[in-house]
């Protein structure tokens, strides 16, 4: 029912009277006062009457004035024997892309996307001239994917600019870019990128198939699409990757993955997404492999601590006191003297506070950071321990767990969820419950696929080539194969070439 009202302009047919056409466009864009009509006449031959229609703010005004209006005004050649519209398109305007059409839908889409429509008296057809020019953010380093060494540029919100960033990294016609439009109302442009000779054809086919399975009125961020097409959508673990950095996208494409760019967001989706990618950072590949292996091990330990430490603490302190070494038991029970809450509630409460601090840190204006850290460290940390509201070991546990959780931002959401589930299980059943949770998590992880590839495919690696980039980052010259199952074109040719 709603559809008829807005899509009715498709039935409108343009006439060869310019004023009627202007009227038609005005009726399509009723109440839209950003739509501009600029009527012009050729100085030498006033019978050449044109009207340029564009949306204010979407076009590059300088370009419009100098490359389209000015040439038409000053055109002096003979044209009578030719088709005027053709002459204007070919000889007069300086636009890089000119499309001649009478299709109302195309015209309207062109206008709303920043092109100008040139109406000419006597023609029912219209020239669509590329005059796009809107302000976009400059290329900057993404805040959540910072590196110390390596490329720092990040995507912005303009898809063509993003694609150019990628193209600059992979200069080969093998890099395919296929456009598609999402959003019945927003008409957002998207681009599927892959390396034709490297990509896993089955993954690509599945990816394209899933993109056709849904319909939504608008896609403002790539997550709109991601949630529609990902495997195990209810799972806390990611099955589709996202990044804001062209170098990461390029690396994923070279490993045989598919990328999806969406206009209006700097976040690019990549698929398939393996579990180990949560622990990989682009910087791993830019720095010394010993150092990056240490970093990777730290991230895996951080995942363990981030999910398990509070659960282990709760189960040890409330169920298995005999497993604590005597001095530790003494200091923990000393610290717990006079604390009113049971350990479990203490843990849950402190984690709620920590997550609140984290969330307010992400949302609040940057100038208030100082206040937050004072409140966090002094009021919640020190004062609450002194006031005996929480015990000091719990503050340490929460602090350590929180830091470890922040160390692996790609799996942050899952980390928090798993942590609370584990705490709950530990509070009911002690270590037994914790083991229950761990086994459940493992069973779940091993059952999840991403576009036909098991996300834990690296866990049952049995050759060096399968293991080279999991727990450690091997030196580049040993990375001879692409990751398991990701590409039929396995060989990566990272071997050393003889210099002779």
């Amino acid at each position, binding site marked *: 029912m709603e559809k008829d009202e807005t899509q009715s302009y498709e039935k409108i047919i343009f006439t060869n009277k310019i004023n009627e056409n202007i009227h038609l466009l005005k009726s399509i864009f009723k109440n839209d006062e950003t739509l501009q009509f600029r009527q012009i006449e050729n100085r030498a031959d006033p019978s050449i009457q044109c009207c340029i229609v564009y949306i204010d703010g979407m076009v590059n005004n300088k370009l419009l004035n100098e490359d389209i209006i000015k040439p038409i005004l000053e055109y002096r050649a003979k044209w009578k024997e030719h088709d005027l519209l053709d002459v204007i398109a070919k000889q007069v305007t300086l636009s890089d892309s000119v499309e001649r059409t009478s299709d109302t839908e195309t015209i309207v889409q062109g206008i709303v996307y920043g092109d100008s429509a040139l109406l000419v008296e006597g023609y029912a057809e219209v020239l669509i001239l590329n005059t796009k020019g809107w302000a976009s953010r400059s290329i900057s380093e993404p805040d959540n994917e910072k590196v110390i060494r390596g490329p720092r540029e990040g995507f912005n919100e303009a898809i063509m600019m993003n694609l150019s960033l990628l193209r600059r990294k992979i200069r080969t016609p093998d890099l395919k870019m296929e456009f598609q439009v999402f959003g019945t109302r927003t008409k957002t442009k998207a681009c599927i990128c892959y390396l034709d000779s490297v990509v896993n054809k089955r993954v690509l086919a599945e990816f394209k198939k899933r993109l056709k399975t849904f319909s939504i009125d608008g896609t403002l961020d790539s997550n709109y699409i991601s949630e529609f097409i990902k495997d195990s959508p209810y799972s806390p673990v990611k099955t589709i990757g996202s990044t804001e950095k062209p170098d990461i996208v390029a690396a994923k494409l070279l490993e045989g993955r598919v990328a999806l760019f969406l206009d209006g967001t700097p976040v690019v989706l990549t698929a398939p997404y393996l579990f180990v990618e949560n622990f990989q950072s682009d910087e791993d590949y830019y720095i010394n492999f010993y150092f990056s292996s240490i970093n990777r091990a730290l991230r895996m330990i951080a995942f363990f601590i981030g999910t398990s430490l509070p659960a282990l603490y709760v189960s040890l302190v*409330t169920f298995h*006191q005999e497993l604590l070494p005597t001095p530790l038991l003494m200091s923990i*029970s000393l610290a717990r003297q006079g604390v009113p809450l049971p350990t479990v509630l203490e843990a849950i409460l402190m984690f709620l506070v920590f997550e609140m601090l984290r969330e307010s840190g992400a949302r609040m204006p940057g100038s208030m950071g100082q206040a937050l850290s004072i409140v966090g460290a002094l009021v919640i940390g020190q004062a609450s321990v002194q006031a005996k509201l929480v015990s000091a070991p719990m503050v340490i546990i929460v602090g350590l767990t929180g830091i470890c959780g922040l160390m692996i931002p790609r799996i942050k959401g899952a980390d928090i969820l798993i942590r609370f589930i584990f705490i709950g299980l530990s509070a009911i*059943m002690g270590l037994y419950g914790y083991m*229950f949770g761990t086994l459940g998590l493992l069973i779940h992880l091993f059952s999840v696929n991403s576009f036909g590839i098991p996300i834990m495919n690296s866990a049952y690696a049995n050759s060096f080539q399968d293991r080279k980039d999991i727990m450690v980052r091997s030196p580049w010259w040993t990375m001879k194969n692409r990751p398991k199952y990701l590409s039929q074109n396995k060989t990566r040719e990272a071997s050393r070439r003889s210099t002779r």
Partner: protein
Amino acid sequence: MKVIKSCCILLLIMVMLCFTGCWNYRELDGLTMVSGFAIDKGEQGHKYHLTFELLNLAENKAAAEQLESDGDTIFDAVRNAIAKTQKKLFFSDCNIIVINQDIASEGIAPLLDWITRDTELRLTIKPIISKEKTAGEILRPKPVTDTLQSFEISKALQLSSVHLSKSPKVELYEAVDMLGGDDTSLILPAIKVTESNRGKTTELDGTAVFKKDKLVGYLDSDESKFLLFLKNQISDSLFLTNLDSKDKNVALEIISSQTKVTPVILNGSVMMNIKIETQAAFAEDQTAKDYLTEDGIKEVEKSADATMQAGVSDLIKKVQKEYKSDIFGFGASISRSMPDWWKKNKSSWDKSFPSLKYTISVDMKITNTATAKTIVKVGD
């Protein structure tokens, strides 16, 4: 179908919840840690009188606290303690049990039953025999370096078994093994209270000797050392011997020691061949003579051999005569190397042990002299 499947899975999970064994939710605040306890004869009609040493966490610091309680059984006395404290006693970190010598001479087995049976108490807990009038006295002195007297005694036992070797270190499971077996008799460390500059202090004092589960007597510190040599439990202690003097004036630091006890049948009766091989360092020399020559070292070795020979022989004689209890584990070594003979004769082992023959050979080797090349010389 899907519903049935998920119901089955849910049911399986719920069944699994029942397989948890022994567990319970207990907050730390509701527990009070027992570091050790002493068992005495009961008062007021009760059979046992227990003295617990507790960790007192009031006033925000760890301190020792004694709590006494009576009961008809050990467990009864433990539960009766709840009436005197608001918290439940927690035994997982309990390190020692001090046992009154009077109770021990009546039989120690009934005391150990609950201690080995209960889930909280560890099998590595160390039973000790108190030489004082009551066992509770042992827990009362203020510890020298620790907060809790029990921990100090436990650590002293641990350390002395390595560096001092004047009392045996026996953990509960070993004691139960010795008690249950018919080839080795039980020994336990003994402890007493001494007066010192800082008031009363506890001190490990030799070995308590049992026959079956009854205390029959004690060995002093020196005898205990030879006992440990015989039981091959020496690692890093000192061995004193005398040269040109009646007093012990040379100290050897043992590097390693190996004792082999092999039974042989001689004229129808069994005889023990005891072979002690010890490597030691020449650690202290109080004599005026410099023994650090090849001949001198040999002389020291010879003297040490003789001391050892005499000490071990005296000890075996004393135990055979006074206690008639095979604390050396001779029976165990026979049952290992001559199982058939042992099967036939183990019922009469009690009677044959006091007249058991043995030979002792000692091989003491001095392998180094620490950092000195001569003795400290006095100038003319």
